[in-house]
């Protein structure tokens, strides 16, 4: 017997249509009420669906709802599909390269409140519609009778697959609209940049309680630039250039003990290398690297 409820989710099996090459298959949707911080359970008019099929959109969602719950009208459908050609994107976290590359005037991430990958949110016109849909889905799932027709999910219309989908895929951009785009976003960038400069200017002008002002060089552009330039002493010790400078001043072969120490060091190094090599050969022997046949 198939499972019908998984934690707070209702499991709705839908039938994917077959093609001439592959038979029909069951697909499982996990459905619950959509609850967010802003929208309490009592107020929501959306359902949260886990494991949406590929290419799920408003139309095929609507078609599904019309099969299971006539009269529940949906207003919108949002989804986040897994799509990662390089296999490097981590959907569990947001990465905003713009902000990372420049904390001061990077672009804010515009999309927030993101839907988890592979999930979708159906919003109904009203709460009643949502409730109707959910209850009829539950009813459908719970009914043990096998005579009722399982809902079907139509993945694509013909126009969305095959040659019509893939012929002539290209990334060409329209030069005109692209230049407009670039223009507007560069304007926005300049504005942000300007704001930061203003802030910096303000800093130089304000006198703090003790009567100090921040000194800013003519090439400084950002606040974090100033903060970043203050190196602590520990940083300095790690700085190669600095330590080289210090070391250059020392004379290395002045005292006898220095020469002695150096020689000892040399012999020890030699010995260490020898031991390392012995170890290496031992490992190679274990791997039978010396068998010439």
């Amino acid at each position, binding site marked *: 017997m198939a499972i019908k409820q998984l934690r707070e989710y209702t499991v709705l099996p839908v039938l994917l249509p077959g093609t001439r090459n*592959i*038979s029909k298959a*069951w697909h499982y949707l996990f459905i619950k009420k959509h609850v967010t911080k802003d929208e309490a359970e009592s107020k929501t008019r959306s359902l949260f669906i886990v494991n949406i099929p590929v290419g799920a959109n408003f139309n095929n969602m609507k078609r599904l709802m019309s099969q299971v719950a006539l009269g529940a009208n949906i207003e919108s459908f949002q989804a986040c599909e897994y799509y990662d050609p*390089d296999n490097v994107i981590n959907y569990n976290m947001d990465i905003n390269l713009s902000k990372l*590359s*420049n904390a001061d005037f990077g672009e804010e991430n515009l999309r927030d409140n993101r839907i988890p990958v592979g999930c979708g949110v159906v919003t109904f016109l009203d709460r009643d519609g949502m409730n109707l849909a959910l209850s009829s889905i539950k009813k459908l799932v719970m009914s043990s009778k096998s005579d009722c027709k399982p809902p079907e999910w139509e993945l694509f219309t013909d126009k969305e697959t095959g040659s019509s989908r893939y012929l002539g895929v290209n990334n*060409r951009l329209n030069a005109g609209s692209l230049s407009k785009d670039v223009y507007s976003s*560069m304007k926005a*960038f300049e504005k942000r940049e300007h704001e930061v400069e203003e802030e910096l200017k303000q800093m130089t002008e304000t006198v703090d309680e003790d009567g100090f002002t921040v000194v800013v060089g003519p090439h400084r552009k950002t606040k974090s630039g100033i903060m970043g330039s203050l190196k602590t002493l520990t940083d300095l010790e790690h700085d190669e250039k600095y330590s080289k400078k210090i070391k250059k001043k020392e004379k290395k072969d002045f005292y006898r003990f220095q020469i002695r120490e150096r020689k000892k060091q040399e012999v020890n190094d030699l010995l260490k290398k020898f031991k390392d090599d012995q170890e290496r050969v031992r490992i190679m022997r274990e791997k039978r690297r010396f068998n010439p046949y």
Partner: protein
Amino acid sequence: MTHGSRPSNNVETDADVNEGRTEKSQELEKTKVSELEAPQSVSTKRPNAKSDGDSHRSKQPKLTAQDVQVARETAELFKSNIFKLEIDELVHVLKLKDSHCKLMEKVLHRLYDMIQEIPASDELSLEDANVYFKQSATKVSIPFPDPKPTSLNYKFKYETPEDISLVGSFGLKTGIQQPSGMSIDVALTMPHELLQPKDYMNYRALYKRAFYLAYVAEHLAALSEEKHLPIKLSYEYADGDVLCPVIKVQSSPSDSPTDKDVVFDHTGFSIKLYVGFPLGIFEAKKLLPDRNCIRVKAEEVDVKDLPPTPLYNSSILSSGSYTCFLKYLYTAKKTAESFRDACVLGKLWLKQRGFSSDINEGGFGHFEFVTLMAALLEGGGESGNRILLHGFSSYQMFKATIRYLSIQDLCSHGHLSFSSLLSEHRSVYKANGFDVPTIFDKNTKLNILWKMTPSSYNMLRLYANSTLELLNDVVRDRFPQTFITKANNKVLKYDIFIQIPLSEINQEDSFGPLEKISFITFETFVCSKIFKILSGALRNRVTQISVSVSSTSSLWPIAHRKPLLVRNQKEKYIDIGLSLDPAESEKKVTKGPLHSQKAEGEKFSSFWGSRAQVRRYKDGSIQYSCLWTASSESPTVTIVKYILDLHLTEGISSNMIVNSSNFNLLLPRSLTLSTANSHPLVMPSHFQQLRSSYDDLCKIVYHMTNLPLTVKSILPASSALRGMSLLLPVPFAIANPDFFNESIVQFETSTRWPDEIMALERTKTAFLLKINESINKHKGYSSFLSTDNEIPYLKDVVTSLEVLTPEGYGFKFRILTERDETLYLRSIENADTRQKQAVTDCYFYFMRKYIGCVKHHRAFSSLVTRYPFFGPTVRLFKQWLESQLLYPHFSEELIELIAVKCFIDPAPYSIPGSVGTGFLRILDFVSRWNWREDALILDLSGDSEDPDATTGSYIDKLSGKLTVQEYQGILENFKKLRKEDPSGTNIQFFVASKQDPSGKLWSCNNLGLPIASRLTALSKAAIGLFTKSVQFDSSLIMLVFTSALKDYDFVIKVKAPMNLRAKSGVLPIQKFKNLIRPLTQFPGDPSQYGDPLQSYFAELKARYSNVAILSCHRYTGLYDTKEGCSNVITGIFNPAVARGEKKFRANIGFNIKPTEDEHVECNRESILNQMVCLGGDLVVSFEKYH
């Protein structure tokens, strides 16, 4: 052996061998060793010296001091510590088992007793002897050499041998383990009384010896049971010398063994009984190589004019000198401590390269090597100065001998003369050569290299040269290439390998009596004739010609006089191996003497027959020449076929089996033909046309005036622009996935680039828009911007400019600024620990697409010109990967880096001189590359030709060779990487060069453990097939170039709605050439661009690459046939995802179904259904295998 007695301190090592750090370091040694103990006792740093008890303290320093000395000694006497340790280990591994040796000694004693018991025979005439053996219980034939005697006026007799001694490596204790079994050589010396001084003539001694041998065999067979030594006897030719049969004794345990029986078959040993002549019985002078000792009656030839019989003479001389050389070598071994180990190294070195004392295997084996070393211990220099010193280490001895072989010409310009007489310690290099390889022993008057030919000598020298180069390499450890790697496979060894069935060569007529006495066998005669013809015809096209007879099984039963004729003579082949000079071998013209030189001209035209013609060249000279037409096979092969047809046997070329040509046919053929004056294989004109179109475009971009900054550089980064793309670039071939050739544009330095990544990209876009505008104004050019999705998290922001040129090519430009890298690095710095990995990946993508690819292109475009066959070989390797559905998993750069290994670091082979050989060596390398434990470190400056020029540090810097420090740094990187990830789950192939010391730029993120393992497995299978079968017919090659679809979990067969073959620029499969129409213009409809199947594959990969590993042919055009499918998409489910139950999470990331116990599992059916559904009408069929 204490270390004090080691002669290392009192002998000043020779400058030739020593790395040049003797005196100083010895001085240092004294001070250091003495000082070492002092600080040890007062040392507070060493915890164990202080805290532990007295016993430990007294033990520790002593041990260390000794260790220090060993360590120091090895650094001086050997190349490095590790090398010495490796040699020690190798010598140890090769050592014969003591228990086996003991057993064999017992066997030898019994054998000795048995021989002593053999009774003397009466004097028998030839007829009596025949009757005697016929009557005996064991069927024994007398192994008379050809011609078999019919009536003789002298008698045969057996008497107990004058001397029985152990000769060869077992006696010298230099024997090594061999998979084919070891043999112990025992020499019986015939008593003086049985021979007369004149017996050296006309086979007399040989016939007497044959009787002697048969008599021994007959009695040994009879005595074996009685003496409890069950043995099997057979005849064999000593080192392939048909004049000198020996008895081979093998253990053959009886069915009902008794306790007394000595059985030694498990040891792998066999014993060879040689019968030798007493030293000095024949006057050695008369047996010098230029003397005739076989008098035959030939028409119109006077006795005085009979040709010399060097093989016969040397065979008799060498049979008379077994014990003499035994003494000589034994003394040498006793005087030099490391002699034995050096012998072992030499023996192995020769063996790995297929050399042995056998005439058919080069004629230079253990005996020759050891004798050479012994001679070099006593001199060998031009003034008799010693080449080897007695205090040398084994490594130094080996290296000095190799060096001697490499630099001294012992064939045409000089020879080495030594004396095996113990009292005379003198050997000199004399500057007159005999045109045969010569190391002459003044004592026995034997040339110990008599079994070598000039061709095998040349081969040996080539090996010595390359090994010397390896031993001089101070950067990396070359031990495995020197000793461990086997370089003996005919298929891999030569650039062109040709086989001719011996039975097809109808040369018996010309093998007259005179040839018979100077060449002894028909095979030698034919080989020598072919060699002469070929070296006259090929001249500087080849660096090495080797002609030999294949597979002569030498053993035959004692009941027969000589080896049984193989019923099917076709099994015997003449093997011709050619090593080519890539700069010469592909030339289509063979130039001869000037027209004015009449005599030479006549010679030329009589040699070349109808092909010879007189041609006028551009520089005005008129020369005799031959012109060869271009075809899929190399002109060198064409010449070989033609000239052997002409001079050897007519029509022989149709029976020739040539391996390399079949590989050339595998390269994709392009829609348009290469122009006549370029070479279609090495550098097709397609690449030059592309290049010139690119140069024109660059000129336009450089001269743009409407840009705020001027263009500083345009750097190409495209495999087609460096002549290495799988498909040849064909104009207007828009379905070729590589149609757009990428390059990177850089502007003059500016401080005004935005300090934020998105804004920077948008500024770049603004620049591209400007360029776009002005390119579109140029007639014939059109361009457009497109999104560039190369860098994750920056999709839809980055743009690139694509340009179509009037010549019909496409180019793609990206912009690189000096700000980019800083911004990426800053992002990594700012990212928190969770984000760091993903941001670092972004940086890697950026490095690849903007900086790494340019460096790679620069390095490889120079390599392509340096190694003419590199380009086509890489293309063939790509074709193989493509056919095996592996191509999409590798970046092109990674493929090229792996392939270049066999060109810049070819040891133990030489640089490949043909496509087939290059390809096989790449496969061979990949199959043996243990990437979990070994890094691939490449020196892309790769100028190995002139080692002397790069010794100065100044030039080192100029030529950009990999230095020791850099090499060590890269090794450190690799160690670190494997420490974190020992099984290689993240990074499989570590491929580093000076350009990329991190080693993972090209191999991270797109490979994966299963694909890496599959590459290894497939290459192993392929190379196994190729090396086993010497003849590559098309079905075998097809097998290697076809992928096994059943290995995958599921296969989606797909077909594009249009034929992509012609549109990718690939020659359609059609019978009528006049129906092929070249493409002439770009279609206006952008939907015609690209390959829909690739887009389909890309979407599947984007959606499902976490669930399954998907593979596909990248170049659909190559697989497009009229009927059926044109491409396949295959998949293997990722077991980590697709198997087992998982806990339910909303963002689990893949398609799931519920299980009974409130968990979820991967819903494969639904995934497959959706995959196929996406494909719609492109899908032809779907198959699930597992």
